[in-house]
């Protein structure tokens, strides 16, 4: 069970095929094999949340998933979500509110926040705090992040209402 194993998956919409060691976790595969270094590794035991990515639309801690388990899956990382423009408003809100300092937690924080905003268009601050409560940030004290997510929710809601018939 230690020989390289073939996998095929979609990463940010691109078809990727690779041979990976069975023990390689998905975070290391993304960073070391695909050079997608926007996925950060903070603890390697599923606590800090810095390696959060999307697999088949769900947020996942990529340090707790093996690369072989991603065979056939669709994986999205911060690079893909940035290029597609899906979270550009959220990124702009983080920028305007200085909701990041060192930036190490930021890609995962954005992905986790977007996960909430897709499920709940009007989250209150408590709900935002709760949804982000698995993502460490040692710099900001969280308030600016909560503000930025709240502002994005409000702006999206307003723009949706603007489009409503």
């Amino acid at each position: 069970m230690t020989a390289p194993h073939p996998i095929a998956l979609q990463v940010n919409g691109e078809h990727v095929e690779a041979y990976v060691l069975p023990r390689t976790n998905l975070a290391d595969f993304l960073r070391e094999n695909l050079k997608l270094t926007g996925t950060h590794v903070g603890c390697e035991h599923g606590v800090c949340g810095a390696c959060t990515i999307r697999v088949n639309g769900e947020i996942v801690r990529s340090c707790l998933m093996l690369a072989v388990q991603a065979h056939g899956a669709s994986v999205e990382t911060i690079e893909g979500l940035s290029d597609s423009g899906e979270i550009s408003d959220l990124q702009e809100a983080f920028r305007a509110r200085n909701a990041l300092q060192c930036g190490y937690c930021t890609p995962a924080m954005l992905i986790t926040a977007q996960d909430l905003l897709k499920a709940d268009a009007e989250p209150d601050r408590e709900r935002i705090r709760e949804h982000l409560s698995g993502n460490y940030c040692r710099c900001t004290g969280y308030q600016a992040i909560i503000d930025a997510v709240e502002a994005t929710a409000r702006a999206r809601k307003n723009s949706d209402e603007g489009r409503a018939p």
Partner: protein
Amino acid sequence: MNKPAHATLSELDRPNSYIGKTVPRPNLDRLLQGRGLYVSDMELPRMAHVVYVRSPHAHAKIVSVDTQAAKQKPGVVAVVTGEELADVITPWVGVLSHMKGLKSAPQRAIAVDRACWQGEAVAAVVASSRAAAEDAAEFVAVEYEELEAVTDMRTALDSATPVIHASLGDNLAFERTFDAGAPDAGFAEADEVAEAEFIFGRHTGVTLEPRSVVADWNAAEARLTIYQGTQAPHMVQNIAALHLGLEEAQVRVVCKDVGGSFGIKVHIYADEMATYALSKLLKRPVKYVADRIESFNTDIHARDHRCKARVGVKRDGTITAFEIDDLTGIGPYSMYPRTSAIEANQVVNLVGGPYVTPNYRARARVVFQNKNVMCQYRAVGHPIACSITEGLVDLAAAKIGMDPVEIRRRNLIADDAYPCTSPAGLRFELLSHHASLDKLLKMMNYDALRTEQAELCKRGIHRGIGIASFIEVTNPSAAFYGVGGAKISSQDGVAVRLDAQGAVVCQTSITEQGQGSESLTAQIVGSVLGVSMEKVRVILGDTDQTPYGGGTWASRGAGIGGEAALQAAKVLRKNILEVAAAILQSTPAELDIANNRIVNAGDGSPRIELPELARIVYFRPDTLPPGIQPELMATRHFVPRQYPFAFTNGVQASWLEVDTDTGFVKLLKHWVVEDCGVVVNPQLVDEQIRGGVVQGLGAALFEKCIYDERGQLTNANMADYLVPMSGETPDIDVGHVVSPTAESELGAKGAGEAGTAGAAAAVANAVNDALKPFGAVITEIPLTPQLILTALKRI
């Protein structure tokens, strides 16, 4: 503009004036899109990875290290012992000459003969990948003979306790005693004396990106390039060169994005030194990234103090004396090169600092232990001193039945008493304790909150209000390290130039770890030059590229690096106007720069665009009048000289609820008013305060490195070592009072550590306030449910 009338700044009150304005930090998109470059992301050709085999024992003789089996494993480049590495790198001793009596033993990059804490490296395995190195590390056979571990600081000096370093004679690293005024008379004239033992848990910084370094010795160039997430590149350059037997010119230190620092990354660690040495030994790039267990076991710890303290107070609220006896354990070595005596020394300096009380007695003792090294972490000593002082003030108030606000009003140094000197000899240029307290009370609506508290108490809901005034060391001069012989620069330099297209390039010796160094530099340079911020590119973190300087630590970036930027930009501005005057056949006094062009000073009408001026200077100097040699680059350095430190002040308040059945504390709200002088970017300052507060909240409620009696760290992982998460953290309101320093034209003092300085004290006072109906007082942090239930006699 949110700044005071400050005559010397008048020329900044113009278009492109960014000082005092909230503007987004430049280049944030890089981090927002996951396109930053942290050291852990870096790869170089032929790069190998090092993994350290670490001692599982707190104290053990290394009988033998057998590397043969490991060397045979696939991908292994080398397996290196401490003895072998000693040929490449010399040991060091973490002392400073101005810390009188401070002693430590020689420390090696990799242990030789003896391991002194659980986690000290005893061998290095270098391989083609981290995984291969970890696999091979399993096959390094180290035979240990376990020695008795010194773990309890309270018995470290007992004659029955083994001495960790025989050559030092005892386990006492440093002792300072201090007397000011007449403490005995002060206590004699007191109507009441309150005393307590304050206990502070050992905790650490938990930077989200672990310490990381890539060392690249190019044997052909005889030059070492160190890529490291450090706060002080020139310090790293000096130390690496010194111990590798190189000239500083042979060492380049490059610092790209840094995933959190907080003082953790201002030191030089043994494993980093070993990584530099391994690169030199193996003649190829070597990468070391700590894993999380290594971070907990080797990143400096801080704050492990036990302090017996008392305060005397008269019935009218006058505090008559403070006395402290502080004890702290720092691990087996004083850290290098900043030493591990600074925190205890700061506690002696800072206790009682906000108050007029002239009578003060202090003793601090720093002892060795077989635990991980302790050293400077954000707000060094301040949280200890503030918690002791503010805890004592609340105890004194309770003794005489006075409101905690009232006793502070009666003892805080008056706002018109400056300049003045504290009993410990700290010189205060201009502080604002009373104005800050008044503002805080208004922000929190103190009286209404007291009413609400009383109402809720009747219904069995126990809420508390805690207040903590504090002072904070910022903008340190050479008094911190330079005078003690450390090659840690207290001055910073900035070079500014106008490029050939009229944009500005600025190189600064301060560094960026997310605080906003790049932003404040661009804001200041843009403001002085009259160019828009997006035209200013700031280069930091490269000893080959920037002027020489200290870096970013001790809340010094804005105050020192910012002033250097201001002065450099002023010279460049003058030079640009001289060239413009020559081109336009005018005089510099008749011209100004605004919105990226030369304009008439009188009516602001445009004369020549900066790109056009630059084109002429760089490509058609032949068209300039004879004798004109334009200098479109200027460099200035700055260091404070009149005051050793620019003290800031502030006050914090916590509002929280204690569940007396479970012992859990719910933080409801936190307020801070602080005075860092001129605020360059209000948003960035507020975010520094908030981030700092939350690190202090962690100390107050959650964070503790728990060692067992054998010196084993039992919670060296993120699941067991708790930090504040978004769910536990309250919203924090921040207000400012502005008392500029006259030492610089900019007038800015530091703001990076103020939040951490007072947060734990405010929370502890609030918990005790909530527990008042039960007659319980707790003077220990973190305030765990167990501690609270014990104090309530529920368990």
